[in-house]
């Protein structure tokens, strides 16, 4: 394809779609990034958390109360609880080990398998989908293409989450504890910070974010036991590119990958899946701290 004809092909709808894909990725990546930045744990099971959030939301909407937003909250909180439990039982005992990070990675991988099977056991291997909440359940026509209005909601919520997180980390007491502890754990502990409890709290927060991501995305994709595996690799790519530990990095990285996913098929029908991995390798080699490296930026 010659360069001049590239530009007119990028419609505003493609951009919106790319941003909504990015928003979904942001929600799962920011939790992963936060957990890594503060705890030093790369949580392989984060994709599973995302998936769990979607499933719980679906289950609540179908069986408990037909209110999407309540179900989303339920989904996010449920995942938070699961995450905190996992951190307490399986990750906390490992901090003092010499090979802590690798061991924790392996343990979380174990949970990938467990969560996958648990989900399959409870909900079966079929796939489910739900409609967006009625008030947003319509299509928007823009620039010759149409897309679901709900996508705009997701984008908006992602931005809201980013802003809230930023405020939380920079303006609250808990946030300052988080920042302090991540830069020097021992010092923080000596200053009286209950580091283990803080860690569990951060893991809880990160898990809630993943669950929230899954819950909010459930109207846009089908939910099946394969969802966790599909999403975790994308999440890894995003946090590497954005910078492990950086929230704004997660945001920018996610939007980048989202746009790549949206526009990729149009320009390079073959090989578009290799590009994110290539980007990941390049970033790891030349700028391992990512585009925005550092915590709380």
């Amino acid at each position: 394809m010659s360069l001049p004809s590239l530009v007119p092909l990028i419609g505003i709808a493609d951009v919106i779609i790319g941003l909504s894909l990015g928003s979904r990725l942001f929600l799962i990546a920011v939790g992963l990034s936060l957990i890594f930045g503060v705890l030093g744990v790369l949580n392989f099971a984060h994709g599973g958390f995302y998936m769990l959030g979607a499933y719980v939301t679906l289950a609540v909407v179908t069986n408990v109360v037909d209110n999407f937003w309540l179900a989303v909250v339920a989904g996010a909180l449920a995942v938070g609880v699961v995450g905190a439990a996992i951190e307490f039982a399986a990750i906390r005992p490992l901090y003092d080990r010499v090979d802590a990070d690798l061991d924790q990675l392996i343990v979380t991988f174990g949970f990938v398998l467990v969560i996958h099977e648990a989900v399959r056991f409870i909900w079966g291997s079929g796939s489910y989908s739900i409609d967006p909440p009625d008030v947003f359940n319509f299509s928007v026509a823009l620039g010759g293409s149409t897309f679901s209005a709900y996508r705009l909601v997701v984008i908006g919520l992602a931005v809201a989450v980013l802003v809230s997180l930023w405020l939380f980390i920079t303006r609250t007491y808990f946030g300052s504890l988080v920042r302090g502890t991540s830069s020097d754990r021992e010092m923080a502990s000596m200053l009286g910070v209950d580091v283990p409890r803080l860690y569990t709290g951060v893991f809880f927060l990160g898990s809630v974010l993943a669950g929230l991501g899954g819950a909010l995305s459930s109207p846009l994709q089908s939910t099946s036991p394969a969802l966790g595996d599909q999403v975790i690799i994308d999440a890894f790519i995003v946090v590497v590119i954005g910078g492990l530990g950086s929230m704004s990095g997660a945001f920018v990285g996610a939007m980048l990958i989202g746009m790549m996913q949206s526009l990729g098929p149009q320009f390079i029908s073959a090989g578009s899946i290799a590009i994110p991995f290539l980007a990941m390798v390049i970033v790891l080699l030349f700028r391992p701290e990512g585009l925005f490296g550092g915590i709380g930026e």
Partner: protein
Amino acid sequence: MSASTDTGGRVSEFGSAVADGWTRERFGLLGALGLILLAFGPSFQIYLFTDFLVVALFALGFNLLYGYTGLLSFGHGLFYAGGAYGVAIVLRDLGPVFADLVGSGISPLVTFVVGGVVGLALVVVVAVPVGWLSVRLEEIYFALITLAFGMLGYSLIIQDPAGLTNGTDGIIVLLGSVDIGGGSFRIGARRTYYALTVVVVLAATYGTWRVVNSPFGTVCKAIRESPDRASALGIDVRHHRWMTFIISAAIVGIAGVLRAGLASVASPGLTHWSTSAIAVIATVIGGATYFSGPIVGAFVFLYIRWGISRFPTLEAYWELFFGALLIGVVLYFKQGAVGGLLLLRDRLLGDGGGDADGGGDADGGETASSDERSRGTGATAPADDEARTDRGDNS
């Protein structure tokens, strides 16, 4: 063992060692007997055991990097696939060429051997740059970049570049029959392939054993224990890791070649991170700090998996079982299965355990004494956290 140089002397030494109680030699002999006997067993069991040997080699190669050098790779499937695709492509495209060259009688065997060499060469060619780039990173970042490389390989293979790899469906591998001196046998025949695999795996395991117990191996362990200290001693840490990476990849590549012949197909799934994870699971379950850990782990993985498959209700959730096992082992029993067996042995015999009881084979026998030697400074069997000397801070 004293070093006699003449064969006669060695043989008689061996003989007396075998007769002298439960020595390593005796176990070696019995192990060899077991392997030979198995060749007369039920066809499916031979297949399962061959599968185990291949996976064991895969894990063994992986562990050279992980257990011995401290680098966790989540992308070793790349080399597994490299070996498999190398031999598959040669068999598919160069088969007729060789048939013309050496006659269609022995050409399948020749093609297979050449294919194996090509697969191995391909793997090394890929491992050199991939390894060089990867060892610039440490710990989690190393895991991430190897994961990325593995998945990069996956996405490239499924694109079917130059029509070579046949995309998601993979390449079918048909080994063919060899006609020699009036008789003919299928290379892919269960027992034939088993014999082939045993020979190759034993040779590769022995090779790995030699590497691990050589100065090269000692340097690996030194780097694992403390890269800073090793560096202060004048070791080029990065270069050494790179070399280890290449060797590790080569071993996995050999396993990949064998896998292609066994599975009759070279598929892109081999380089997917979920396949790389099998090496991790097998090694951790077996006990990464022992030479035989990956082997025992592979055994556990395959045979428990097979055992579960006998019960359809459990079979549906086998992943759950292994996930839980993995978590349990990492949390409470880092020594893994091998460590557990050793503890069991120690407990059963009180304090009587000594050097004499080590078995040295690749088929699941213990390698206790050799393990004690191989684990370097200050290492004893139990808890990994105590065994490792400091590696610097962990934040």
